[in-house]
């Protein structure tokens, strides 16, 4: 164990712990239930959580910069609403997509500017954004709006065949592309490295002459953009728009990112950690559904326990 700890830098340990947890959870499932250890179960993990993967990628930016974004769940709901009602009104699909993505990133931009200009805690500003977006949903319609557009339904139900008879949806492809793009931006661009710098020490980053303003506002634009994209994926998944979609999903996203080893204080973490976090949450859900007699709220209980454990572990790592 000591040799392992010496070879792997301690900053990778939380991510590795999450991956190990995922393997462990999946191993337990495979040992106990027939049919658990199949490619399709893994593929389903991605299919059922594609939107959460995208949300977690955006949330990783915000948390790395030392902020938090509580609005993402509501923005997902608003996006499903814009999508559904736009399609109902007969807008072409590309226009709907542009409208949705613009809405999300504009909301993010506004929140980022308010946080920066008035120097208010991101918690409060994005809480306001959360209520605002949720309210806007009901301004459009208080009913659930189903999506009947042919193109949209075709894309939603299209299956991509992978070797071994496993099928995935376009949602999965998009989510993985987003993860790849997020990794590139965070690790290979000046903007991404500045996100880490701001999260590590904002005053230092400022004194180093880095564009902290652009980064602090930018991460909320990215999170808003990811939220609206996640909203599009969620529309494809549910084939409806509804103001009560995705209630509390922001907390799932934050939980996934934190379980994936990203420090809430900022500056330390990886997009892949967030992906691993989502997979852990998804596996627990799958385990509980395979078990059959447990109610779904057990997922929440397990997530709660995991979160506590991970935050405690992070705390001890940071202390050292």
């Amino acid at each position, binding site marked *: 164990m000591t040799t392992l700890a010496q070879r792997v*830098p301690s*900053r990778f340990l939380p991510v590795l712990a999450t991956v190990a947890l995922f393997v462990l959870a999946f191993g337990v499932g495979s040992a106990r239930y027939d049919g658990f250890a199949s490619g399709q179960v893994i593929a389903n993990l991605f299919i059922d959580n594609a939107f959460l993967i995208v949300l977690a990628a955006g949330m990783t930016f915000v948390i790395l910069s030392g902020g938090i974004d509580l609005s993402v769940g509501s923005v997902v709901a608003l996006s499903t609403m814009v999508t559904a009602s736009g399609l109902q009104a007969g807008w072409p699909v590309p226009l709907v997509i542009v409208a949705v993505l613009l809405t999300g990133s504009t909301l993010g931009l506004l929140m980022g500017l308010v946080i920066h200009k008035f120097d208010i805690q991101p918690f409060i500003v994005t809480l306001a954004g959360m209520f605002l977006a949720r309210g806007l949903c009901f301004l459009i319609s208080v009913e659930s709006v189903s999506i009947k557009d042919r193109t949209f339904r075709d894309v939603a139900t299209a299956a991509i065949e992978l070797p071994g008879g496993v099928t995935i949806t376009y949602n999965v492809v998009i989510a993985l592309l987003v993860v790849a793009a997020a990794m*590139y931006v965070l690790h*290979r*661009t*000046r903007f991404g*490295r*500045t996100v*880490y*710098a701001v*999260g*590590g*020490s904002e*005053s*230092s*980053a*400022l*004194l*180093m*002459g*880095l*564009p902290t303003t652009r980064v602090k506002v930018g991460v909320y634009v990215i999170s808003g953009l990811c939220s609206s994209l996640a909203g599009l994926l969620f529309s494809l998944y549910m084939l409806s728009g509804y103001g009560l979609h995705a209630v509390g999903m922001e907390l799932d996203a934050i939980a996934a990112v934190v379980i994936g080893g990203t420090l809430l204080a900022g*500056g*330390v973490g990886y997009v892949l950690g967030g992906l691993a976090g989502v997979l852990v949450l998804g596996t627990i859900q799958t385990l509980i559904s395979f078990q059959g007699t447990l109610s779904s709220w057990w997922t929440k209980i397990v997530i709660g326990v995991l979160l506590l454990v991970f935050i405690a572990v992070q705390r001890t790592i940071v202390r050292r």
Partner: protein
Amino acid sequence: MTESPPPVVEMRGISLAFPGVKALQDVDFRLFPGEVHALMGENGAGKSTLIKTLTGVHRPDTGQVVLAGDDVAFSSPGEAQHAGISTVYQEVNLCANLTVAENILLGREPRRFGGIDFPAMRRRAAEVLARIGVHIDPASSLGEHPIAVQQLVAIARAIAIDCRVLVLDEPTSSLDAGEVAELFRIMRVLRDEGVAILFVSHFLDQVYEISDRMTVLRNGTLVGEHLTADVDRRTLIAQMIGRDLGTLEAIEHAAEERQAQGPVLVAATGLGRRGAIEPFDLEIRAGQVVGLAGLLGSGRTELARLLFGADRADSGRLLVDGKPLRLRGPRSAIAAGIAFSSEDRKGEGLVADLSIRDNLVLAMQAARGWTRPLPRKTKDQLVDKYLKALDIRPANPDALVRTLSGGNQQKVLLARWLVTEPRLLILDEPTRGIDIGAKAQIQQLVTTLAAEGTAILFISAELEEVVRIADRIVVLRDRRKIAELDGSVTGVDEVVELIAGGATPEKVVS
């Protein structure tokens, strides 16, 4: 030195006011290429403010900044850096979570296909590090390196761009002698390359060793600009302080004359904590100043924290007034009349966003208990008394602590503890990073307090100070108490010998 080249930086008539403080008043400043220019002054003289005005952190209310003949008005440190003004601050302002290479080059890293070219970045960083003779792995994480190395990385960052002006704001305060020599070597190299270096330090020896020219500030105004060779120390100190230094000698006398024979106030037997400090015995009498000497990391602060209950002892016991006291935390220590003024005054002592008055009142009220509010008049009297007694400047009780200089913040912190009228006052590095004038005042205060019967545990990295002020000196090495000496007959050399190891203590008291 001839004055043939025009100054690279010229600041004229700079004034700047903060709420409640006139930080700078009509200050002129010139900086020539290829010189090391020392900016001198007490804490609160306006050195840091002047530097921050130059580097774009503050904007002056009036006055102009001319860089290489052009009027400039920087609105951020980034703009100043682009114009060729780089700054290394006293506290390392880098990101410990990034790599060394990123810390040096972030913001101007080599790029390829729109992304950062990491191999090229590491090469460039290694080149810059080699230029100043530092050999560390650019791909390693900055946080893994000791502070001294981080400081050098900060300098590497400063010179990685074409910098014309390098500002070093107290870069030596956390370095040891060898590291300072290394820094000076680097500074000379850069100076000879034509870089103008602005240097701030509280160590006069260093200033005289490295600087060519100096500007002296006092209370936000310009006192004078001289070639270093033209001013002797006495003149310089007189200019900085504006009064004579007789106080220092008076302190020494007091230590010799004081009859530290009060009753034993605090007695520790076998007190210790694993990994922090090995079990030690210690007796402190009322009216006695006990000095703690030892290197950084020798367990000075750890010992103090045990006495204050900030850390729990895992062996031994503590007697206060001859009665055993179990410290469950700082609260029980405070209740027993023990006060601890932390070395980290920013983090652990003061509420920076409150006024001087509020900080003092907080402590008073906490000492009295919330059920017995203090009358307004008593508060004002007390605050006034301590402002005067400690010569806190500005003497405005409504000034925010955040806007005060380091020395004055330290005085407010002291005042905060003094209002609780402690019987044992633990001072951890009360004079670190503050100027001679404030230092003398604080030392003076320590002797006065002792004469009034307060027991004092005085911790300082400066041996001269400990030896001058303490009645007894406890020497620590490697987290162990190795000797206890009589302060009135001990010299600095003797203590150094003990700390360095080898010599057996001869004059062990008690």
